[in-house]
Structure formats: structure tokens, C-alpha cells
């Protein structure tokens, strides 16, 4: 078994520079490891690396550990860490940036439904301008394992029973405008 030791060779100075160049993230250098981000995180118990560890690993440039971490996909953007941080590190925004980079580099665990959800969500919105929840879930299930559909039967029935289920495809009139607009914004340059 590979000992759980990282060496200088595992570090990517480029990654460290990138993290600390994110807006507000230069404060990561001031982190004093109080651990409040982790302690306040409602999902901490399920994480492989705690938010504090992620900030530290990121600042030191351990790219593979950070981008391969499960924790970044657990973040629900509740902003508890951001609000608690005594050094005012924008932890949630850094989590977003890590998710984007992980997707860009394709290093996330493929069967993980969370990035797939993000991707499908983004496609649906880009195409139609609005989200139709039922279709989003159906697409998600198709991508991440149709067998999960069985677990959803009761829930779907509940929704149908309470008249909350709909297969209508929501859309907007200005679809073409929206598409042109998003085209004009251009793609993400992380420099912003």
C-alpha cells in the first residue's frame, strides 16, 4: 500500500498560484487553521478532505488531491464557511472555482451524479431559458444509472398525487436572444 505521504514532487506551483489568484482567495495565505470552515460545514462529516484541509492543500499546490477530492462535490453552497471565516476567505467561491476546474480538466469521478447534474442543468437552461424539474431529473437518471429510477417511484407518485408533477417543457420567448447573449459573454476566463 502506498504510504499516505506527499512530497515536493506532488506539488504544482501553477495550481497554487491559480488558487491564490482567484478573487479574494489571496487571503488563503493568511489562513490560521482555526478550522471554523470545517466545523461549521453541514457536510463535513461526509467529506474526505475537510474544507480547511482543502484550503491548505490548495495553497501548497497539491493539485491532484484537491481536484480529485470528493468534498468539492459535496458543497451545497450554503456559505456557512464564508460567513464564519475569521480571515474572510471566500471558501464557497473557491469551491465553485475548484468544481469548474475539475470539470474542465475532467478529473472528477465519472459516476458522480453531482457534476452530471450541473452539466445537464446548464444545457437545459442554455437551450430553453428555464428549467423543467421533471426533465432535469429524468436526464440525470439516464446518465447516472437508470436503476435509480425505481427508488423514485414513491416520490414521483407523491408529486403526482399533490399535483406538483408536470412534464411540460418550460421555455421563454427570448430563447434566441439568450443564446446570442451567452455567446457574446464568451466563455469562462478564470481571470475574472
Amino acid at each position, binding site marked *: 500500500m502506498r504510504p499516505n505521504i506527499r512530497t515536493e514532487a506532488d506539488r504544482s506551483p501553477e495550481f497554487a498560484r491559480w488558487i491564490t489568484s482567484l478573487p479574494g482567495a489571496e487571503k488563503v495565505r493568511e489562513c*490560521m487553521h*482555526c478550522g471554523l470552515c470545517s466545523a461549521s460545514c453541514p457536510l*463535513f*462529516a461526509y467529506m*474526505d*478532505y475537510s474544507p480547511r484541509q482543502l484550503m491548505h492543500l490548495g495553497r501548497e499546490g497539491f493539485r491532484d488531491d484537491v481536484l480529485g477530492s*470528493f468534498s468539492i462535490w459535496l458543497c451545497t453552497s450554503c456559505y456557512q464557511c464564508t460567513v464564519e471565516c*475569521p480571515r*474572510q476567505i471566500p471558501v464557497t467561491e473557491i469551491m465553485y472555482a475548484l468544481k469548474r476546474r475539475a470539470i474542465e480538466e475532467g478529473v472528477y469521478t465519472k459516476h458522480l451524479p453531482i457534476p452530471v447534474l450541473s452539466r445537464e442543468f446548464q444545457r437545459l437552461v442554455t437551450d430553453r431559458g428555464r428549467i423543467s424539474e421533471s426533465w432535469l431529473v429524468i436526464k440525470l437518471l439516464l446518465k447516472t444509472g437508470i436503476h435509480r429510477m425505481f427508488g423514485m417511484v414513491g416520490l414521483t407518485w407523491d408529486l403526482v398525487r399533490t399535483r406538483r408533477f408536470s412534464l411540460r417543457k418550460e421555455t421563454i420567448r427570448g430563447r434566441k436572444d439568450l443564446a446570442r447573449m451567452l455567446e457574446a459573454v464568451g466563455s469562462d476566463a478564470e481571470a475574472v
Partner: protein
Amino acid sequence: MLRENGFGSGPTGSEAKGRPPVNGDAPPLNGDPPIRIGVYVCHCGTNIARTVDVERVTEKAGELPGVTIARDYKYMCSDPGQEMIREDIEELGLNRIVVASCSPNLHEETFRGATAAGGLNPFFFQMVNIREHASWVHEDRESATEKAIDLVRAAVRRVRHHKALETRRVPIQPQVLVVGGGIAGITAALTLADAGKRVYLVEREAAIGGHMAQFDKTFPTLDCAACILTPKMTQVKAHPNITLMTMTEVVKVDGFVGSYEVTVKHRPRYIDVSLCVGCQQCIDACVYKRGKFEDEFDAGLSKRKPIYLPNAQAVPQVVLIDPGQCIQFSSGKCKQTCLEACDRDAIFFDQEEQIETLDVGAIIMATGFQTFDARRSPHYGYGIYPNVYTALEVERLVNASGPTGGEVVLRDGEKPTSVGIVHCVGSRDQKSNPWCSKVCCMYSLKLAHLIKEKTDAEVYNFYIDMRTPGKGFEEFYQRIAAESPPSTSTRTGTASLSWTLRTPSQAWCGGYRSTCSSSRWVSSHGTTPRRSGGPSTSRVPATAGSWSATRSWRRSTRLRTACIWPGVARDPRTSPRPSPKRGPPPARRWRSSTGATSSSSRTRLT
């Protein structure tokens, strides 16, 4: 580097070099020797030279009218530097000296000495601060150099107008004013008084003793606080050289070094201090049968009447009346039972504020600290949940002379079974106070010990870093950690600890997820400098007398900006613990390769 103009000063010299006379440059008066200026530019190691092109400054200075010689040197304040000035005065006949280096605060005296050593009047010297005013505050080398040149040019223009001055000794006021009657002010007052000085000790509150009077023990020796303090308070009262003024504030300071005129305001206490003997008959007789108002000395943990003694060991042992609470003041229709009970007729409802002027030669500021208001960190629940305490409240709770006689009984009437002490509340936090209080770790450990001793509760310390930098402090930490290993669940190493209290019954601490059910939380709060009620102390000049009080002053000003206390915690759980059919899902091993996860909830690093 040496730049010598090879001429004297004044218009003639300039014209000889083809330069027009500089407007406004007064030629030397009839009969006076020509002005010959030496300019010395200091590198201060790299402090100045890194940002300011010292050689260019020297070169430019050498071209200024009246300048006979301009030199730069690594350390002007060193022996060779000073010697250089002395030699130049003697050999080149300099009669004015300009040194461009650091702050006059630091070395003006030094260079005046060097000027005098060369045989000149020491006031024929002008200092230019190109460190604090140029190199340290700028990054752009070019602009910093330009600024340094401008500053030097101004000094050269100025120094030719200097006149020979004589120093003179004048008598100073030998009396000293000490502001603040806490342990620092008391000690200062006694030391001075024993040395034969007259001391005015001014205290804002009704009794002296300050915060220390509220404490049970001191760290790191666990000495009895009262046993150290109370004899000193008595000495203050009895000392023939000390005039004690309680309920008094400084409102204005005029005058100058060695002779200040200080205006103080005596707030009315509605009791004649010279008559009252502290028999407390008036308190018993008050129309309020029981205490109704929060007792400040007990940090609000007990109640008192509108007429009260500040505390049992108060010096002076004189009661006072709170006009905001006394019925006589609010309605004018009290039966005045206190008046009847006082057989010394010491109560005067018509007392008024009095202003007095004191002449002193030195002032010692010992205004102390105030604790951080833990309500400003609402996530710890202080002021919301009854069993969250500040450290000062706990000090009273464990104090033998406190409201519970030293027995730790909580607001809900119970004894605590477990206690979490949260460090750094209002410290090291950009949202409240960015600084470290310096004392919160130590008094938290002290409180941990006292709580443990008195209740045998589980005590958890939630800290970021354990900072124990004083004499005997680290040893104290080790002692507390060793005497009850399970009770201080701190872990050194990765400085991690923390607390969450969204789930009131749980805290993440010391690398463990610890479950402290039905915990009571103490918060260690930060401290800030004591703020004045009026416009007074902030305007006290930062120079305090010609004798050695300056040192104490410096120390006390530092204290004023460095103090902070710790103090509060989060939500104590009052609802029943959850009873899942199945336990909460364990932290799953999402990725075994990291080795960082474990299914045990007691091994997670935060």
C-alpha cells in the same frame, strides 16, 4: 562618496558656478561668517537605501546653495558616522549640519550630540526623516528618491535660519497623576508614593481594584488574587502621599512636559466620603426590600439595590447611590428610609458634579481593558442561551466571594456536567478584533482548572493555537493538560480545534468530533482598551513627564492596544438528543487512497 563644491556659501559662491542666487536665501548678516552646511545621508543598512537612491540624494544635496559637503554613509548613527560629522566641522569649518536619516524621535539627540562634539551649538542641526517619511512608506524607487531630495532641500533651506539656542533647566511639578485604579495604577501609585512623590490616583468607578478584584486566582501560579490586591488597596487608602479620588474622570489636560494642568470631574456619589463608615445600615433600610438591579461587580450575576457598596472588600468602604435607579431621583417621592437609617448623616441627594484642577508633572495612564462584547459574535449564543457565559462571569462564578460563594451553579440552577471553553472570541477575527488578546489562552486554562476543581465536570478547551509566551506559562499549560487528561481535549500539533454549534450538542475539537451533550459553554472573550465615557483620556498627550514615567507610559499604551479577552460559546442543547433507529450515516470512505477518512467519528481532523 564625497561632493565638495569647493566654495563657501551664499550668492557669491553660486554666481561663481554660474548659478543665480536662490530667491529667499538670506545672505549671512553683517559680521556673521558665511553659512557652510554639511549634509549627511544615511543608508540605514538597506532600510533607506533599498527604496531611496541615497547616492543621488547626496549628489543633489551637494549642488544646493550653501552646502559645503554632502556625504552618504551606511549607518550615520554609528560611531564612525558621528565622528565623520565632528571631523568635517573641524576640518571644513562647517557651521550647519543636516542629517537625512530616520525619525527625530530616535536620533535627533544623537546628532545634536555629534554637532556639539564638533564645537557647534547643537541647535545648528536639522534632521530629515527619509525613512518613515519616504523609504518605508513608498514602493516606487524613483518617486521615493524625488521625495527624499525635496525633503533634504527643504531642510537645507531651513537650517541656515537656525539660531544658537541655550538649554535651560526649569523646575517641574513633582506631583504625579495616575489614571486608573486597577492593579497597575495601584502599583504605580504605591511605588511613586514610597519614593516620596505626591500622587493623585484617579479612578472612574466607585472603588479601586479594577478587574483583578473580580478574580479568584491569578495565572500561572494560581495565587489568590484578593490576597495580592486587597492589602495594596488598603495601603493606597492609608498612604500619606496618595490622594485617592474615586468616581472621578479626567476631562482635560493642558500644559506641557513637566507641568500639566489636569481638569478632573468628580461625579456625585450622593454620600459624603468623609462621613460614611460603610456600616451599610442605609442599604438594609432601603425601600427596595431585595436587590433589583444587576450588580456590575458580579458581572450581572447577582442583584443589588440602588444604594449599595461596590463590593465587600471595596476601598473606600463607602456606599453610593445610582441616581438612575433610586426612586428619590426618578420621582422625588421616596420615603428616604436610608436617610433616617444613617446615623452619621452622610447622605446628600443634592450632591453635584464637581470640577477640580490638579497640577502635575507627569501622568501615568493605567486605564486598562474592557472585555469584548460577546453579543457581537451572535453565533455563540451569548445573551440568547442562558448557559453561555463570558469569562468574566465565570470568574465571579468560581470566586469564593462571588454571588454563589464559589459554587458553580448555572443560570438554570444546575451544576454543569460538561463545559466547553471557546477561545479567541472577538480575537484574531477580521469581523471583530483582528488582534490576539494575549491573555485568553492563559485565563482559559486557569478557568478550566478552577471549573474542574469545583465541579469535576468534563472541560473542553476549543482553541486555535495555544499561546503561552510568558514566564511559567508553558509550564502552566502542561500542568493543566496533565492533571486531568481527558478533560482538556486539546491537541497540539496541527493547531486545529474548533467548535460548531449549529448542532448544539456537538463540537468539533482538537481533531476529534466530540459530543458534549448538555454542555455549558463558556466563552473566552477578547479585550479592547478601556474606552472613556467622556472626551478625556484620548487627548492626554503621549509624553508624560521628564522623569522615567515615560517607560511606564509606553508600557501602558501598549497594553491599551494589546489587551483582549476571550469569552463565549454556542447553543446549549435543551431538546432531547436524537434517537435514530439507525445511527447517522458514517463518514464513508469515498476514496481510500487518501487515507484521510475513517468511519470513526472520533478521528476526524477539522
